[in-house]
């Protein structure tokens, strides 16, 4: 294998860049095989952990299946939990195309929710068809500006985007708390400071026949659109070039700065939209309950999906399912809640370590991957 090929990302996206259909197919195969093997290895390692504390791994995995996927109720529970995670994972995966590690999606999520609640409360008589898009726009813009500012700091001032986004998430949360407890507090919310509740027509409903709100569909669509833009447009292509080598991209005449600002804005907008949906579909108001860690779980999912927007969908469902089963596992096996965190952590490490297998797995299995081998 040549040096240049080693740097091509073995995702479907990366595969499109490589030469030859056979090569492409093999890389696609590897892109699917490696995460699956990593997940299995992670589950196995967690099984050993369970054995070490005297619990049955078989019972655990049966319960996870039952609680997360095994019944219609469980499946809907999983989808409902995955809904915000699809969008907050995009907040990590989009900047990652440019090589940026943004981990402050929680801030954009909270601000998006706050902006939507504030706008919604200000127009209690607006019909849903007008009010909801305006709220969505408010959420998109609030989150977009917040993470877009991280991109601007990075591009114009050279500030590390990882640290900046994390610290700005703390600022966003403190700001939300202040506004909810001060200027925008509904006087009726005595012991739980909140904004004025949204009018009924401004609430997002459930998908007919299901106990899952429309945010799930929005999240899936957003992932599909992001996947399409990245893999099928010159815009997405130029982003990946810039992510590979920003200086080389600039020399080629690509607008690196604009790409950074656009992608960070879109990333924040995704998280902000998730916040808007959380407010309009779940809470009906903005308050401290918005700070539930969806932004941080999104980081986990984006990395599990190896920053591929399409792969975010199954990963969000897996993490949502594990979360949905968490309660059943606690109740039936008397395990502490942190058990699920241990499982998530082991899966995370397994996926990250598996990156080192890229381009090596198939040769190790006796399959050649180089284009010349055809």
């Amino acid at each position, binding site marked *: 294998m040549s040096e240049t090929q080693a740097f091509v990302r073995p995702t479907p996206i990366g595969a499109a860049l490589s030469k030859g259909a056979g090569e492409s197919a093999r890389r696609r195969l590897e892109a699917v095989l490696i995460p699956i093997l990593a997940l299995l290895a992670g589950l196995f390692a967690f099984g050993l952990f369970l054995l070490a504390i005297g619990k049955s791994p078989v019972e655990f995995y049966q319960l996870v299946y039952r609680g997360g996927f095994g019944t219609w109720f469980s499946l809907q*529970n999983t989808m409902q939990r995955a809904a915000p995670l699809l969008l907050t994972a995009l907040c990590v995966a989009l900047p990652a195309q440019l090589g940026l590690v943004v981990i402050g999606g929680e801030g954009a999520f909270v601000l998006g929710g706050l902006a939507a609640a504030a706008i919604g409360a200000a127009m209690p008589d607006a019909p849903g068809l007008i009010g909801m898009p305006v709220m969505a726009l408010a959420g998109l813009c609030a989150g977009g500006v917040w993470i877009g500012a991280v991109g601007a700091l990075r591009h114009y001032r050279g500030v590390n985007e990882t640290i900046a986004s994390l610290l700005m998430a703390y600022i966003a949360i403190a700001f939300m708390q202040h506004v909810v407890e001060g200027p925008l507090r509904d006087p009726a919310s005595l012991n739980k400071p909140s904004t004025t509740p949204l009018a009924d027509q401004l609430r997002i409903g459930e998908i007919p026949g299901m106990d899952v709100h429309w945010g799930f569909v929005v999240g899936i669509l957003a992932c599909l659109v992001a996947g399409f833009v990245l893999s099928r447009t010159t815009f997405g292509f130029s982003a990946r070039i810039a992510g590979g080598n920003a200086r080389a991209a600039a020399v080629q005449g690509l607008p690196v700065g604009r790409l950074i600002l656009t992608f960070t804005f879109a990333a924040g907008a995704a998280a902000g939209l998730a916040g808007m949906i959380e407010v309009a579909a779940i809470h009906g108001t903005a*308050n401290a309950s918005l700070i539930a860690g969806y932004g941080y779980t999104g980081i986990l999912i984006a990395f599990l999906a190896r920053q591929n927007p399409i792969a975010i969908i199954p990963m969000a469902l897996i993490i949502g399912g594990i979360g949905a089963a968490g309660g059943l596992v606690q109740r039936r096996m008397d395990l502490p809640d942190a058990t699920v965190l241990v499982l998530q952590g082991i899966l995370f490490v397994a996926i990250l370590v598996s990156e080192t297998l890229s381009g090596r797995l198939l040769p190790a299995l006796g399959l050649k991957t180089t284009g010349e081998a055809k």
Partner: protein
Amino acid sequence: MTMLPLNRRRLLISGSALLAAPLLMRVSPAAAASLTAGFIYVGPRDDFGYNQSHAEGAAALKAMDGITVLEEENVPESNDVVKSMESMIQLDDASLLFPTSFGYYNPFVKETAADYPDVQFRHCGGLWSEADPKNAGSYFGYIGTAQYLSGIVAGHQTKSKRLGFVAAKPIPQVLMNINAFTLGAKSVDPEITTQVIFTGDWAQPVKEAEATNALIDQGADVLTCHVDSPKVFVQTAAGRGAFVCGYHTSQAPLAPEHYLTGAEWNWSTVYKMFAEKALAGGALPNFVRGGLVEGFVKTSPYGPAVSEAARNQTDTVKAEVMKGGFAVIKGPLKDNKGNEVVAAGKAYPETAVELESMDYLVEGVLGSTS
């Protein structure tokens, strides 16, 4: 952990239930006299605080015959709690649910109760009103009076005449505790002041430790708190040699020498009452509240540092409280900005609705609600 013996039993029970489930499928005639009750906590159930106080109540139910207790911890105040409740109902046949965190009620408990009219929901916090589903309800305790008793003990103990209070948010219930604690201390010596620091949220261990240190640096020698888990607060204060009054549950095991007394919930009273009524097939009340008199609230046993004089005065006042109708908030009373908040001759016993929208700190409290 302390739950080991229970683990094995629960494992065997659940393991055999799992094996038998496909064969039996709800064919359980003995189920008539049995009840599955589910408890949901917002934090860890061994937090030495709010969640543990409820878990102790749940433990009291486990000891009763015919009751299966389900527990889930660390469930956020979001749609997660809806799913936890539904999962308990659908997958584990729970018919009585206790979602214990204040923020669970609106909209989550209300909406779920409407969806499951055959299941009883009782929520901690006192939010139920007539317009809400009839299978939902509220319970809560008047803990301010117990804080008043803690204040008396603190008033005897302090040498610097400065008390410290680490509080989460300036909401009515927290303000009531700060005011009651201060008034208790001032009943011993009117010169005493309480410095309060708000951390901004219910579980902020780092800020709680910083606030505790700051209060001690400013001269406070007896402190108490109102946060979800007083563990960090108690350990930090005791580590600096200050005395503490506890909250939610007893933190005496964390600081046996420095723990004076504390205002504790006694949820087992409430949970047993609900469970017994449910087992007997009777209707459950929708709205219950109580204080020291009703056994909803209790005080921690005195620690070794509490003087004889402090014990005597506190016991005397407590006996007065136990007669019923005792009012901590009574006129003439000024707030700490000099405005009169309760006119002379006016008294608000703990049951008074006026106290539920409290928005002031009484004279003697150093701090601000905003």
